[in-house]
């Protein structure tokens, strides 16, 4: 009996540990919210000019799990942007609510619903996975809470958006266009190099690779169709899961197929750096397009000189403001940020703050409804754009691009770059190119 009691006590202690861990900051029981109630959240009190009011904003991303690295960058960058305005817009004080989707659509949807209902966020910003976005779109539609600039790119989002714009329009905007619009840079780079005589491939064979996620599959699909349209043949197509680092068998096959170009994408830093090193080790002279290499801030530490002549598509820290951001970020969080996750999220967070300010100026208060109105009236029409960003010259949307932004020179565009010694040189588009495509000797 005494053993039994001791065991029970231990179990009780463990449970107590668990409960006390969450009770500390658990939110008080919310008043019942009817499921279809519209923009009631947070809108109850009429704004009084002087008194400071509290609002909550959701910041979404994969903060734990396999993509936690990217999620952390997003979180840090958004936090830095809000820090700069002291978490205030007019007389509103903003409290962040971090929505951790754990890279899982089901968990992402649950976390988002919790943030809306219990924490009472009135709008959300940022995000990473497309599959999570699709699941969260249901939630934003259900509560009519607008969400801005999640980086999920796949066309499943566009399809869903188009299927019922009134409903899914609360997923107001994507922060990343469908890959079709971006990979055009690679295809043009390659074809221009062939036309100019800088690249004289013996075959027109291309090997395509991608991580086995919505992102990887969409990019490879886009690359494949655009390359096929310009006379290339995809002889190899491989997808791989997280932490795949042995590519030697695949590379042996590439060798036999005599591929002229190896092109693909992954956000897994270990996979991509291993791939590039192994291509180099095997002595392959093919042109390597490694989309996403620069997404990891410290990638050069992993690849070393193997990354020379590799082609990527990423904005660099080119402007002084961008360099300052990168330095500040590194000082604060101890690691180099990536321009695509941290940089874009930083710009979008600032754009989001601008939207909040506009909503306050236009409607006199900050509610889900007033914020959504700005999206409808000003963001979607192109009236409101953000040109003070550190990555892109301009972030703007147009009726025919929605939910994507306008892509192209002077707007949202990813320059194609080629690496030498860890530094990228812009080689496309022509108007901002700083160098020429070079073949690996």
């Amino acid at each position: 009996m005494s053993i039994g009691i001791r065991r029970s006590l231990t179990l009780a202690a463990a449970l107590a540990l668990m409960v006390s861990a969450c009770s500390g900051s658990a939110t008080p029981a919310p008043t019942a919210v009817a499921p279809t109630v519209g923009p009631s959240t947070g809108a109850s009190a009429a704004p009084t000019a002087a008194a400071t009011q509290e609002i909550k904003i959701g910041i979404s991303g994969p903060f734990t799990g396999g993509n936690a690295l990217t999620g952390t960058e997003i979180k840090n960058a958004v936090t830095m942007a809000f820090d700069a305005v002291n978490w205030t817009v007019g007389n509103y004080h903003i409290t962040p609510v971090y929505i951790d989707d754990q890279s899982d659509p089901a968990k992402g949807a649950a976390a988002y619903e919790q943030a809306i209902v219990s924490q009472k966020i009135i709008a959300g910003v940022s995000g990473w996975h497309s599959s999570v976005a699709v699941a969260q779109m249901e939630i934003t539609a259900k509560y009519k809470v607008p969400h801005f600039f999640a980086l999920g790119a796949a066309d499943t989002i566009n399809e869903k958006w188009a299927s019922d714009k009134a409903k899914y329009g609360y997923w107001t905007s994507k922060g990343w266009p469908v890959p079709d619009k971006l990979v055009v840079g690679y295809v043009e780079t390659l074809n221009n190099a062939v036309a100019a005589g800088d690249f004289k491939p013996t075959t027109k064979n291309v090997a395509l690779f991608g991580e086995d996620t919505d992102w990887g599959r969409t990019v490879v699909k886009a690359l494949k169709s655009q390359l096929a349209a310009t006379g290339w043949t995809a002889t190899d197509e491989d997808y791989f899961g997280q932490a795949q680092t042995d590519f030697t068998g695949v590379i042996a096959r590439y060798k036999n197929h005599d591929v002229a170009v190896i092109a693909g994408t992954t956000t897994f830093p270990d996979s991509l750096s291993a791939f590039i090193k192994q291509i180099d080790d095997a002595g392959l002279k093919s042109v390597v397009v490694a989309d996403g290499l620069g997404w990891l801030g410290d990638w050069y530490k992993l690849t070393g000189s193997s990354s020379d002549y590799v082609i990527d598509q990423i904005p660099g820290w080119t402007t002084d403001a961008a360099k300052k951001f990168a330095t500040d970020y590194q000082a604060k969080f101890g690691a180099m940020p990536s321009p695509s996750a941290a940089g874009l999220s930083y710009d979008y967070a600032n754009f989001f703050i601008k939207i909040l300010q506009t909503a306050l100026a236009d409607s006199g208060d900050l509610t889900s409804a007033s914020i959504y109105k700005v999206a409808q009236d000003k963001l979607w029409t192109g009236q409101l754009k953000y040109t003070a960003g550190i990555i892109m010259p301009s972030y703007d949307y147009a009726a025919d691009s929605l939910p994507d932004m306008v892509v192209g020179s002077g707007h949202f565009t990813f320059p194609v770059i080629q690496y030498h010694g860890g530094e990228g040189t812009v080689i496309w588009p022509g108007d901002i190119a700083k160098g020429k495509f070079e073949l690996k000797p």
Partner: protein
Amino acid sequence: MTAATNLRQVPLLRRYLTFTWITLGLAAVILVLSAFNSPSLLVNTLVSGGMWAMMAGGLALVFGVMNIPNFAHGELFMLGSLTASLVYGPIRELTLSSKSDVLKWLGPFPGILVACAVGFVAGIILEGSVFRQLRKRSRESWVMNTFLLTAGVSVIMQNTDMLVFGNFPRGISRYWDFKPINILGVTLAVDRLMVFVIAMVVIAAFALFLQKTRTGRAMRAVSMDETGAQMAGISLNGVYRLTLGLSSALAALAGASLLWLLPATPTVGQAPLLVAWYVVILAGLGNVQGAIIGGFLVAMIQQFTAYYVSLDWVDVVPTAFIILVLLFKPSGLFGSEVKGVWEQ
């Protein structure tokens, strides 16, 4: 008594016409033939096989001696990887800047050795603080209970690593920054070759240890008959401690020597763990010798799938193959009625 019949001497011909030997023979023939098509298949099979053998050997040891299906084996790999990156980071600058080739060759070893030691200590702590506590109380449903315990350890270690050291990959481009060398017309990075050499040396030392030393014999004895071992004056707790220590040291060693391929992240151990499980199930749980051969077999299947089919199927094909093997040999290729960590 079944043991006796199973081990009773069988005619030489029949002994080698078993499912196991036919499979291995076929594998060898295919491997050699395919080498004419692409020699890299042979070379890469050998090189990756060495890594898997090292990883799976430790897993097999723990199951063989202690009956623990260790799902935290991947986190010990992670621990090795992390330790090596922390230790090697400062040393790296030093050796890279030095003119001496000897220093460049030796530079990576302090990190690898420290990682190995840290792994050993971690294993001993794990045994004392977790498995020993359970053993003192109950050995009922031991295999499943310890499986859950290791799952718990895995979750705790992964997330602690994330909280303390963060998510960003701590990696290096290469350990041994020399020109790739050419073997059979295959260019092979020096890192890859060195890992193969390390794996072979460690496996050989490990085999010798198990077969020829007093302690190694004690381990094998415990794996076969715990009561008998106690009667002979062997301390079970001592053997358990050493077993988990050694197995963890092997995993940490693998993690450390693969740092150039797999940068240290909290989840870096998951993929190697899965492969190690493929290997031990294919070979027969708790059989170190089988695990070493199985490591090469799984490496071969993976290389062939990647080469002839596509990378997409690289996890599915070994799985299907193992299911097939289990249909004919329900306890793995080298499984037998007699339990022993080294003996087939």
